[in-house]
């Protein structure tokens, strides 16, 4: 355990090396842009930056991508507060109180409170992360092929069952992601499969065109279709220091919401949106006087911002420890792990512990740097929210096509980008969740390798002879049963409610 403080320090020092810091700063600036523009998101940004990270060493690739990803939730608050339009989905709850505050002339108070809440929320997550490691490491030593395979299945099933509105659709999509991962050389037998005699597919479907197509194209198309114009800018004068004081006064709320956010980040399938609403809900429930929520209560800004900021470092833990990404962006990160030659699991908690801590430090530092930049450049940054879709969308689409082609530098990338863009648009509007596909696709090869090793080594006895496997099986069953039971209860409730209303109407 004595290596943990050394790795913590080593990770911190690594962040301040010139190349790492420079790439992190580029990532932060890009993330601020993606957070500001309503319609784009951290996932689109990650897809766009991913081709430029490939080929870089881990200590450059991760700060570059995480710097981008961690920052979107700082700047997405600016349009949420000033114009009532969340920059990303993770700022929806912030609108409820942030926008009324702006209408009352307290925009700067709301923004500065949110920046500080995000910083403190990410610090809470980092502390939880460090506290968890000594507990996690002996546990991970007990893991072998069967446990890792079952963890991959648990991650997929949880992601599938918690993402979107339908359990069956989510699970089907996770399976679809695994099917996509089967294209190309089989990891166990070495023969090419499902490649349609197209040499491009022999190495498998590359991640970049799929991510860009599936997640960024639908957003850009919707941006162009809506051609959203924003009516008027709200006053944003005064109240900066009051916002800072608000955040410090509500430090306990930040600690609680930071913990909620961290846990949400660790559970596959939850993510920023759930973290934010849980944080907001907790703030309302725990408040002695909740009458001002929705009308401009600063706690309604602080709580969701602390939760979303904490969710990001929280998502790193299952990704590095078990290779189970907590959400879509972490699935991309897991893809980067495999591309740069790192293997999640014990290796990341021992030999490469400094890289693990570098990732945590980057999410914290990115929040602090982005907050300082946003604080100083707020008046100019807000103008980005007003860029017309007809200017922004073609440029972003152009960069996306370039980015997609960088994957293998083959026109097959462009074709895949188009196919997955079309599929992504259909899936988005037909209410089929897309994140489980990504998680399935990234986990596919790992899961198949673990399954093969497990069956070869243990036959089928591992299913009932290994206690950790049994615990994971119980967790898998629960992850099926609990959402299904909740859905059943909700439907029953809706039936009772609608029956009552009809009866009332008849009377």
């Amino acid at each position, binding site marked *: 355990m004595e290596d943990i403080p050394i790795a913590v320090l080593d990770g911190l020092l690594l962040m301040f090396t010139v190349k790492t810091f420079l790439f992190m700063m580029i990532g932060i600036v890009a993330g601020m842009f993606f957070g500001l523009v309503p319609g784009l998101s951290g996932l689109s940004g990650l897809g766009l930056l991913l081709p430029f990270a490939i080929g870089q060493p881990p200590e450059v690739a991760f700060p570059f991508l995480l710097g981008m990803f961690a920052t979107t939730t700082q700047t997405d608050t600016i349009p949420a507060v000033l114009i009532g339009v969340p920059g990303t989905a993770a700022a929806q709850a912030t609108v409820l109180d942030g926008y009324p505050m702006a209408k009352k002339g307290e925009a700067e108070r709301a923004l500065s409170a949110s920046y500080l809440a995000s910083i403190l929320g990410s610090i809470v997550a980092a502390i939880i992360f460090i506290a968890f490691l000594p507990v996690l490491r002996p546990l991970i030593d007990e893991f072998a092929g069967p446990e890792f395979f079952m963890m991959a299945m648990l991650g997929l099933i949880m992601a599938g069952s918690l993402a*979107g*509105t*339908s359990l*069956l*659709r989510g*699970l*089907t999509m996770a*399976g*679809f992601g*695994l*099917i996509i991962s*089967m294209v190309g050389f*089989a990891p*166990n*037998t070495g*023969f090419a*499969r*499902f490649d349609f005699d197209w040499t491009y597919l022999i190495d498998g479907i590359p991640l970049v065109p799929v991510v860009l197509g599936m997640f960024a*194209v639908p957003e850009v*198309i919707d941006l*162009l*279709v809506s*051609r959203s114009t924003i009516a008027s800018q709200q006053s944003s004068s005064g109240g900066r220091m009051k916002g800072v004081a608000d955040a410090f006064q509500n430090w306990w709320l930040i600690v609680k919401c930071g913990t909620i956010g961290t846990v949400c980040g660790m559970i596959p399938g939850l993510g920023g949106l759930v973290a934010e609403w849980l944080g907001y809900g907790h703030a309302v429930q725990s408040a002695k006087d909740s009458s001002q929520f929705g009308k401009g209560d600063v706690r309604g800004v602080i709580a969701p911002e602390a939760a979303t900021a904490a969710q990001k470092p929280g998502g790193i833990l299952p990704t590095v420890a078990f290779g189970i990404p907590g959400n879509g962006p972490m699935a991309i990160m897991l893809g980067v792990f495999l591309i740069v030659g790192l293997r999640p699991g014990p290796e990341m908690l021992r030999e490469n512990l400094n890289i693990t801590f570098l990732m945590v430090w980057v999410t914290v530092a990115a929040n602090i740097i982005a907050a300082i930049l946003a604080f100083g450049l707020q008046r100019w940054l807000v103008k980005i929210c007003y860029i*017309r879709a*007809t*200017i922004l969308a*073609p*440029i972003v*689409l*152009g*960069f996306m*096509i*370039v980015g997609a*082609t*960088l994957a293998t*530098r*083959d*026109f097959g990338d*462009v*074709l895949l*980008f*188009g196919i997955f*863009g*079309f599929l992504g648009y*259909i*899936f988005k509007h*037909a*209410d*089929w969740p897309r994140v489980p596909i990504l998680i399935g696709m990234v986990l596919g090869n790992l*899961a*198949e390798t673990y*399954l*093969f090793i497990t*069956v*070869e080594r243990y036959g089928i006895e591992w299913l009932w002879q290994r206690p950790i496997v049994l615990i994971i099986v119980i967790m898998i069953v629960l992850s099926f049963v609990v959402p299904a039971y909740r859905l059943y209860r909700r439907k029953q409730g809706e039936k009772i409610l609608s029956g009552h209303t009809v009866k009332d109407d008849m009377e």
Partner: protein
Amino acid sequence: MIWYRSITWWIGIVMIALTLIIMTESAGWSMGGKLFPWIIGSGVLITAGLHSILGIFQGVKLAEDEDEEAESEKLDLRRVLSVFIWVLAVLVAVPLVGLQIAVPVFVFLFMKLHGETLTLAAISALVIYGFIVFVLEDIIHVVFPQALIIQWIGF
């Protein structure tokens, strides 16, 4: 029995068909080869099959209310089609004439034809051209695939 279902329901059917193809294709492989496709395929058949069966008897429940959306979707359909045609055009143009030409031309034409000024459209196109040629090709030495037209002409 209602045979027409929303696209959400039909996607489930496509998933079943795809899974059946995967499982049929892998049926003749060795145990090690077909193990994973069959385990995952069986799972997808169960979930997508249940989704389809429940969809027939209960209908498909969506996140948003379809009735409310229907009106705005009708209005947007032409825009959606127009955007898709633009995207399709640039995706076809990239292999044909090359990334370096297709992407800046797309940016310029799209902006110009959607009411942006000539100067702004030209600057945007030049910026993206500069990024591809000077940053990616000259500085980072990225080698993009040759345009099909160039290959056909024989250069």
